[in-house]
């Protein structure tokens, strides 16, 4: 096995939103930091958004599901027992290369659901503890938005002005205005003016296929290039097989990984931080069993891999008489609403959902509204094809507004990531299996919100609506498989993301979220890592090293 001679202060696994913020803060604080990334650099020139083929390519090589892409750099996931197909990307920048840029910080109540609603667990700190870190990362990503949203406590504002909400956003807002319901112009992780090396959003509406414009924030765009100048080392194509645990020291000492040439390598470090996402991180921990931790590294609680949360996701579409140019972006949220976000138990469920107002995509997305499902009920293809296909395009393409409903999923131990007994990746490393069932609370939540969203569309003047409840292809947000907490019996990590079991092992990705809120998690994830890294820097002398 090849082994690097240099022992770094910090080894980070994963270069997505969490790993990149950690790498930046720790490198800039003077630590020697190495990041191992299983993927490689994407060339923005390859992104399909500015090409005629973009929707076709989105069905395969730019699909967010690793099981669909099936690239050599993706690891397979057994989803045969999952209601939802998990999404992620394997690249420098991780899933941020294909995120929508929706910047939706969690709300105060999200951190205290046990205290407020008697369900799940509280976070070990509150919203206000995280707020200054949120404001810091909003500067980092060159956020664009409008200050003053009454859906949140007051905060500092955003570095670049609002991106236009377009005809779709305006149409949705008009409906909410008629109903007297909350809405706010969309806050996005992309600037509206040239800012910090990022170009302004050009409203192509192809964020989730990679941003051709170099506008949407992603760690590969500026961050890693900047911190390389400060000595940060990024190793791409490095697939971590296991974390090395020294039984005598009771510490981790580094990682074993497979490089792009298939060679096994060892990298030593004083501190290891896992940022490999909610499936990748427990996979590594469970694959790192030892005499001390026969059930997986840092797993004395038995909770590594447990409490997987995936936001229940539904779509409500409104179809309008007028041309809304509904392929225009950003995509990116145009507007959003928190009207039904907080718990009202009279609705028959707890917690709530955020709706994101979005454009509807290109013409092939119009085909997706009918698909092949119509044949399940003895329909005939002529019902949807022939002249009827042209009529459908006339009625829907360019004239459709979306409410994308993201609800809170409460943690349940039975929803989990485990190691599949047979499946492996292309390097022979055991691959994960996801076991996930949508809860009754989530189903009721989605039904209620879909009904309200239809009302909103009708208030906006939609001539017809379509509802797609709880889509299987929707696993954008994966949370909670190594959660934070104060009690080692009920959590994997302490409040700073340090393993209760191994003092120099940290998990700073979405695995660490005790609960998942009903909002896109990247804003809160980056704020959390900013908090954790700031604490590590401040307490550096007290961090126990190998």
């Amino acid at each position: 096995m090849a082994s690097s001679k240099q022992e770094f202060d910090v080894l980070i696994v994963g270069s997505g939103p969490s790993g990149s913020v950690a790498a930046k803060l720790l490198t800039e604080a003077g630590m020697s930091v190495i990041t191992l990334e299983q993927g490689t650099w994407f060339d923005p020139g390859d992104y399909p958004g500015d090409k005629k083929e973009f929707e076709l390519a989105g069905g395969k090589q730019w699909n967010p599901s690793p099981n669909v892409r099936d690239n050599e750099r993706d690891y397979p996931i057994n989803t045969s027992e999952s209601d939802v197909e998990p999404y992620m990307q394997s690249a420098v920048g991780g899933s941020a290369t294909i995120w929508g840029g929706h910047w939706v910080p969690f709300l105060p109540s999200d951190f205290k659901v046990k205290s407020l609603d008697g369900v799940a667990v509280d976070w070990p700190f509150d919203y206000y503890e995280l707020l200054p870190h949120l404001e810091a990362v909003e500067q980092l990503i060159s956020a664009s938005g409008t200050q003053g949203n009454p859906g949140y406590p007051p905060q500092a504002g955003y570095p670049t002005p609002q991106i236009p909400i377009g005809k779709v956003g305006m149409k949705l807002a008009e409906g909410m205005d008629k109903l007297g319901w909350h809405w706010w112009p969309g806050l996005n992780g992309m600037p509206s003016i040239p800012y910090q090396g990022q170009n302004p959003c050009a409203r192509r509406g192809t964020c989730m296929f990679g941003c051709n414009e170099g506008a949407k924030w992603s760690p590969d765009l500026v961050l890693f290039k900047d911190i390389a100048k400060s000595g940060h080392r990024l190793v791409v194509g490095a697939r971590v097989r296991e974390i090395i645990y020294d039984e005598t020291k009771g510490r981790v000492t580094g990682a074993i990984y497979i490089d792009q040439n298939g060679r096994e390598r060892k990298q030593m470090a004083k501190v290891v931080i896992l940022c490999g996402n909610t499936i990748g991180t427990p996979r590594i921990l469970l694959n790192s069993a030892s005499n001390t931790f026969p059930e997986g590294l840092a797993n004395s609680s038995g909770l590594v891999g447990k409490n997987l949360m995936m936001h229940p996701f539904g779509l409500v579409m409104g179809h309008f008489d007028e041309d809304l140019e509904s392929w225009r972006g950003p995509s990116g949220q145009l507007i959003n609403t928190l009207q039904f976000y907080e718990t009202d138990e009279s609705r028959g469920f707890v917690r709530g959902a955020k709706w994101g107002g979005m454009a509807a995509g290109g013409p092939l997305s119009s085909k997706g509204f009918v698909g092949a499902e119509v044949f399940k009920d003895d329909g005939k293809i002529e019902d949807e094809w022939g002249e009827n296909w042209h009529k459908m395009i006339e009625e829907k393409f360019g004239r459709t507004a979306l409410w994308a409903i993201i609800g809170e999923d409460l943690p349940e131990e039975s929803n989990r990531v485990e190691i599949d007994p047979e499946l492996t990746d292309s390097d022979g490393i055991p691959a994960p299996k996801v076991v996930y069932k949508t809860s009754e609370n989530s189903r009721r939540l989605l039904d209620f919100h879909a009904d309200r969203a239809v009302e909103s569309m009708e208030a906006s003047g939609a001539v017809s609506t379509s509802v797609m409840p709880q889509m299987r292809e929707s696993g954008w947000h994966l949370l909670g498989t190594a959660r934070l907490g104060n009690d080692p019996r009920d959590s994997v990590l302490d409040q700073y993301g340090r393993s209760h079991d191994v003092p120099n092992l940290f998990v700073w990705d979405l695995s660490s979220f005790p609960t998942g809120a009903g909002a896109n998690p990247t804003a809160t994830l980056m704020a959390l890592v900013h908090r954790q890294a700031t604490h590590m820097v401040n307490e550096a002398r007290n961090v126990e090293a190998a």
Partner: protein
Amino acid sequence: MSKYSDEIRATFAKLADYLVPKYKNKPSASSVGVHLEMLDEVMRIRPDLEEGFLRAVQYCHGKDLSDGLNGLAKEDDAAFSALTTVTTGGYMMTDEARKAVGYPGQDKAPYDPTEMPQYVTNGMLQRVIDRGPIFRDTKHLDKD
């Protein structure tokens, strides 16, 4: 143009025109070449569709168009999906079809970020603000 036989292309042209016929100002699928150069272009982009596409063409070859396509949809959903994706994917990449449906592609849409939005000038956003905060605060809870 050599990868697929003339017979495959001819069968596909009939199927494609049944799925996407000429309609008002919209051209038919074969008239924009979905069975010719666009077929090759789609397969360059999505080689994963080829297996299902060829299965679909083979299944429908020689059958009445409606019988063949309805039978395919019931018996081999993956092949039917590949066939319709190849058809509409190729169709919507052509300039003729895009012009007919009014789609310029995912082009840039320049804007002035300093321009005052209509929802500000017409008072819509102010009405949201005037209704006041809607979040549940947690300041009253003890910090751990």
